[in-house]
């Protein structure tokens, strides 16, 4: 489902990503050493040589290179909420060049691992996932091959 067609309003994890057509994960950036983190940190920079306590919320790059991928062929245990019946999905770890970090996420619905190659360009999208007592579901970030038809 494309995120442009009447998306459910609520994110699954409020404050973890921006909404809209060009979604971005929200991370922390240390004002002292420039290290990025996802999810956001509360307790200060984790660089052992950095004593700066000023962390800024920053949107992370919404595209990167596929570092590796796998599948969830069996239904994960709670607190994962599955559709009935469970539909297996793929997962991707994507390397963000500017932040020099690798970020994990589900792969967009309908994409199989046969369509994935390490090193290919990926982009961030939002898709609804099942939520308790909410037929429209809630929005979660996912990775999709860049330019792939939604």
């Amino acid at each position, binding site marked *: 489902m494309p995120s442009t067609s009447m998306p459910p309003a609520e994110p*699954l*994890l409020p404050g973890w990503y921006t909404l809209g057509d060009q979604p971005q994960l929200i*991370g922390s*950036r240390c004002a002292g*050493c*420039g*290290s*990025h*983190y*996802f*999810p956001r940190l509360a307790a200060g920079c*984790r*660089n*052992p*040589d*950095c004593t700066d306590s000023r962390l800024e919320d920053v949107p992370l790059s919404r595209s990167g290179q596929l*570092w*590796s*991928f*796998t*599948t*969830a*062929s*069996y239904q*994960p*245990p*709670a*607190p*994962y*909420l599955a559709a009935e019946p469970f539909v297996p*999905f*793929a*997962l991707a*770890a994507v390397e963000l060049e500017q*932040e*020099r*970090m*690798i*970020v*994990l*996420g*589900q792969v967009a619905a309908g994409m199989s*691992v046969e369509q994935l190659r*390490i090193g290919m360009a990926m982009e961030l999208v939002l898709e609804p*996932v099942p939520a308790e007592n909410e037929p429209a579901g809630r929005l*979660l970030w996912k990775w999709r091959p860049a330019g792939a038809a939604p």
Partner: protein
Amino acid sequence: MSREVVILGAGMHPWGKWGRNFVEYGVAAARAALADAGVAWRDIRFVSGGATMRCGYPGYVAGATFAQALGWQGAEVNSSYAACATGSQALAAARAKILGGEVELALVVGADTTPKGFLAPARGERPDDPDWVRFRIGVTNPTYFGLYAQRRMHLYGDTVEDFALVKVKNSEHGAHNELARYRKRFTPEEVAASAIVAAPLRLMDICATSDGGAALVLASRDYARRLGRGDAPRLAAISVVTPTFPSALLEMPDLATDGAVTAAPASFRAALPRKAYEEAGLGPEDIDLAEVYDLSTALELDWIEDLQLCPRGEAAALLRSGATRLGGRIPVNPSGGLACFGEAVPAQALAQVCELVWQLRGQAGARQVEGARAGITCNQGLFGHGSAVIVTR
């Protein structure tokens, strides 16, 4: 270190899936280790328990739980939790007591009762807990194993047939181990016919979760000599170092690595044995056997390289050459490994050391590594925990 710590006794409860209380397994393992050591329970002055998070309060205070079950006799207790390295951290606590001269004799015990299927986080709505969040979005432990395996295929040209061969090899070893849960010999075809769990890994590539218990009796070398056991295997090194910043790999339960703009990322797994080698004054060329944490078949290949038993990227070739089989140059997982045991978290690192003890004493029967003089273990779990232990004779 001026004082030396030796392992006087090793004992295990067989691994399986019985659903009984974990204390039963721990007590059985402890009694076996005490009998093996030839020492009386009353002479133990320190009890170090590996804690379990799945068995309620008695699991959190496992040291006291086991001490009470064996009969309170006034010993001091400790309980350690360090995910998959729990047993090693409990071992390190006992070793420190002996090295510090506070006690001569200590008992280390770990045991667990596990649920069926995936290991899962504690219940509740806890978005601040990374271990809860990752399950909420469908990231299980096998997710990470699958990512690492796919990465090996890309970087080194490993194949799913190589991964299956790890299972075949470990099942040949475990067939000789009466303590193992799975003693069936698997063929490559049987591994290939099992269902995909986390591509490219199949059900037979991924270890199960098991019930089990393991225990060790530690003593100072002087105490062992007084018992006429001065030749007992030496606990030569315990490494429980943390990772260093920034992380190189997506590690359980993280959703992202640290941004690496300030320094090059460093491998955590490779750091664990490095410290153990330094402490023991040994190198990988001195090692006769290794018990490695094969949560997945592909991960066994990663560990072989992290232990520097072969250059990076060449573990599959080493496997294919037969070097890691019993009778080969450097047998890996002669016990059968997690492939044959399944994982009983707080007992597993101790079970690895039990195997080293029996191997170094020449008591491993059909799985004996001939002339073994030095063995190493390694494992890694959640939240920056891991360990490597070296035992020598």
